[in-house]
C-alpha cells in the first residue's frame, strides 16, 4: 500500500467533516432526534436540483442556499405535521423526507440530458477526487503547502458549528435536557430547535459534494452514540464524540485501502468504509464500554448516576 499526500488530504477532509457532523449530532442525540439527520440529508436533494437548474453550476452559493432551505423546510414541515395533524414524529419525518427526495429525483431525471448532476453523487460524494482540487495555503521559496478546496469549505462549517455551540451552549444544554424548564426560563427552545436544524442542514450541504450524505448521516449519529455509552458528562460527551469521529475517518480510509487488498478484491470507497469504521467503534463501546455487554454479563456493573445537567 502506497502512502501518498492524497491519502493525507482524504483523511483531512474526512476528519473535518466527521467533526463538523459530530458536534450538532451530539445535541440531536440528546434531543432524541437522530433520525432528523437522515431525513434532512435525503431531503436536500430537491433544493440542490432546483438551485442547480437555476444557476447551472455545481459549486455556486445558489446550491448551498437551495439545499439549506430544503433542509430547514424538512424540519418545519415535520413540525407542522406533528403539531397540526397530531401524527407521530417518526411517521411525519418519513413522509416529509421521502416526498422531498422523490421530488428531487424527478427534477434530476427530467433534466438529466443537459445537466451533469445525479442522485448518486449526493449519496456517495467524491472523496477520492478531493485531492484534485487544491488551494494553496502558503508558499515559500522551498516548499508549497496545499490543501483540498473541500477542506476549506468544511473547515469553515466546523468553525461555524463550534462558534454557534459555544455562543449558545447554555441554551442548547437546557433545551436538550429540559425543554419545559428552558421555556419557563425564557430560553426559547423552539428557536434553539431551528438553530440546530439549520446547523444540521448547513453541515449536510457543505459536506455532500466532498464526502456524500453517507458519511454525514453516519457521523451525525454514530460517534455521539458511541460517546454516549462511554460517559455521562456533557463536555466529555462532546469531546469523546469528536475524537471518535476523527478515529472513524482515519480508520475508515485505512481500511478502505487495506481491507480489499487483504481480501483480494478491488479497492473501495473511503466514505462507505468511514461509516463502517464508525459502526465498528460503536460495537467496541457497546461490548467493552463501562456499561458494556461484557460487564453486564459478568455482573460488575454498578448502578451509575443519572446524566448530570451540571458541567
Amino acid at each position: 500500500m502506497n502512502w501518498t499526500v492524497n491519502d493525507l488530504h482524504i483523511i483531512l477532509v474526512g476528519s473535518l467533516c466527521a467533526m463538523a457532523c459530530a458536534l450538532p449530532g451530539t445535541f440531536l442525540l440528546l434531543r432524541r432526534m437522530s433520525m432528523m439527520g437522515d431525513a434532512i440529508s435525503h431531503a436536500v436533494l430537491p433544493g440542490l436540483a432546483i438551485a442547480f437548474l437555476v444557476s447551472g453550476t455545481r459549486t455556486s452559493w445558489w446550491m448551498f442556499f437551495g439545499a439549506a432551505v430544503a433542509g430547514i423546510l424538512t424540519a418545519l414541515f415535520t413540525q407542522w405535521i406533528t403539531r397540526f395533524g397530531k401524527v407521530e414524529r417518526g411517521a411525519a419525518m418519513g413522509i416529509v423526507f421521502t416526498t422531498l427526495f422523490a421530488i428531487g429525483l424527478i427534477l434530476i431525471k427530467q433534466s438529466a440530458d443537459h445537466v451533469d448532476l445525479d442522485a448518486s453523487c449526493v449519496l456517495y460524494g467524491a472523496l477520492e477526487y478531493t485531492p484534485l482540487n487544491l488551494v494553496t495555503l502558503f508558499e515559500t521559496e522551498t516548499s508549497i503547502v496545499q490543501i483540498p478546496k473541500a477542506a476549506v469549505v468544511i473547515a469553515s462549517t466546523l468553525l461555524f458549528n463550534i462558534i454557534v455551540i459555544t455562543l449558545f451552549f447554555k441554551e442548547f444544554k437546557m433545551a436538550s435536557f429540559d425543554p419545559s424548564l428552558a421555556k419557563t426560563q425564557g430560553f426559547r427552545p423552539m428557536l434553539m430547535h431551528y438553530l440546530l436544524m439549520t446547523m444540521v442542514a448547513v453541515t449536510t450541504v457543505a459536506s455532500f459534494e466532498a464526502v456524500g450524505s453517507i458519511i454525514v448521516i453516519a457521523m451525525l449519529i454514530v460517534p455521539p452514540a458511541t460517546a454516549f455509552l462511554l460517559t455521562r458528562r456533557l463536555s466529555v460527551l462532546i469531546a469523546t464524540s469528536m475524537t471518535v469521529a476523527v478515529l472513524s475517518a482515519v480508520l475508515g480510509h485505512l481500511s478502505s485501502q487495506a481491507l480489499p487488498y487483504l481480501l483480494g478484491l478491488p479497492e473501495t470507497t473511503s466514505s462507505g468504509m468511514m461509516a463502517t469504521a464508525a459502526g465498528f467503534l460503536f460495537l467496541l463501546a457497546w461490548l467493552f464500554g463501562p456499561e458494556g455487554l461484557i460487564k453486564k454479563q459478568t455482573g460488575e456493573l454498578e448502578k451509575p448516576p443519572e446524566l448530570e445537567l451540571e458541567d
Partner: protein
Amino acid sequence: MDLEILRETLLLERHNTRLVVLGVTLLGGTAGLIGSFLLLRKQSLLGDALSHATLPGIGIAFAVMSAMGLSGKSLPGLLIGATITGLLGVLLVLAIRRTTRLKDDAAMGIVLSVFFGLGVAILNMVQKIPGQSSAGLESFIYGSTASMVWSDFYLIVGTLIVTTAVTILILKELTLLCFDSNFASTEGWPTLWLDVILMGLVTAVTVVGLQAVGLILIIAFLITPPTAARFWTNNLKHMLWLSTIIGAISGWLGASISALYSNLPAGAIIVISAAIIFLVSMIFGRARGVLPRYLRHLKLQKKVGRQHLLRSTYEILENTQSETPLKNVPISMALLRKHRYWSKGELPKLIRQARAEDHIERQPSGELRLSESGFGEASRITRNHRLWEMYLITHADIAPSHVDRDADMVEHLLGAEIVQQLEAELELAKSEIESPHAI
C-alpha cells in the same frame, strides 16, 4: 393519443406494462396493510433502518453467487441476501434498544447509516470484479420497474400473498400488540415474538419492493398510506382497508405513469401520489383531519359560550329577585358584564349569536331580556350545572367553593341520559335546585 395509452395502461389493457402495474399495485396494497401496524406500534422509521440494512446483503449475495459461478444478478439470490442483512439490522436495533441507554432513534440511525455505508463499500468492491456485469445493482437504491420480468412477478406476488395471509391469521394478536403491548404481555402473549413476526412481515414487503421502488422510497409505501388512512377513521378494520386501498392506488398510479414516461421513476411518482393523498386526508379527514377538528372545536366553543351567557342571565334574575317563581324581567348589559369574566369582545358576540337564535331579545331601552324559549333553555342549563355541582360535592368530595370551576369544564358535554342518571343518583328529579355556593 397519449391519453388513450394512459387509459389502456391504467386499465391493464397494455400487454407490456400489465405486469409491472399489477405487481406494484399489489405491493402498495400489502405495504399499506402491514405499515398500519408499524404506524400504530410507533415504529414507522424502523422500515427506514430495515431497507437501508438490505444493501450489504445484496452486495454480498452478488459476490457469493459470482464466486460460485452463477449469475450474480439472479433475483431470488439477491433477495435472500437482502432479507438476511435486513433482519440482522432490525435485530440489532432491538438489541441496542434493550441493552443500552440509547433510544429508538439513535438505535435506528446507527444501524441505518453503518449498514448503508458498508453496503456502498461492498457494492463498490464487487462492481469491479472482472467478468461479471453488475450494472443494475444500483437500481435497488433508486428502484427501476423496467427490469421486472415474469419470474420476478411470480416471486413478488407469491411473497405478498403469503404476507397478507399471515397478517390476517394473526390480526387479533397484532391488534393487541399495537394497542396495549403491556397488557398483551401480562396476559401471556409472547410480545417479543409477535414483534419479530411483524418485523418479518415488514422485511418481506420491503425486500420484494426494493427492485421496483428502491430502498429509499420503499419506506414511504409503509408510512404514508397508513398515516393518511388514520385521519379518516378511528376504527382499526376501516383503517386497514383504507390504508390498503390508498397504498394500492398510489402504486397503480405510480407504475402506470412511469411506464409511459421513462424519465419519471416509478418510486418517485408513487411517493408523490401517496403524499398528495396524505395532504388531502390531513386537511379533510373525517375523524382526525385538521379542518373537521377545527370545525368541531368552533362548534363546541359556540355551544359553551351560549350556555355561559344564558346561565349568567338566569343567575342574575335569581340574584335580583327574592320571590319564586322567577319573573323574566329585562336586565342591563352592565350587570351581565360584571357577573363573570368575559374575554374582550366576547359578550357582544355571544349576545348577537343568542339574538339570532331567538334566545335573547333587546328592549327599546337597550336592556336585554330572555325570550320564551331562551328562559326555558337558561333554566335547564342552570339546573344541569347545579346537578353536576351537587354530584361533584357528594360523590367526588370537591369543596363547594371550588366546585363551580370544575363543573364548568364538563357540564357542556352532559347529555340528556347523563342528566337523568344524575337526577336519579341525587334524588332530585323535577325539583328546583339552589346553587350550592354563593353566585
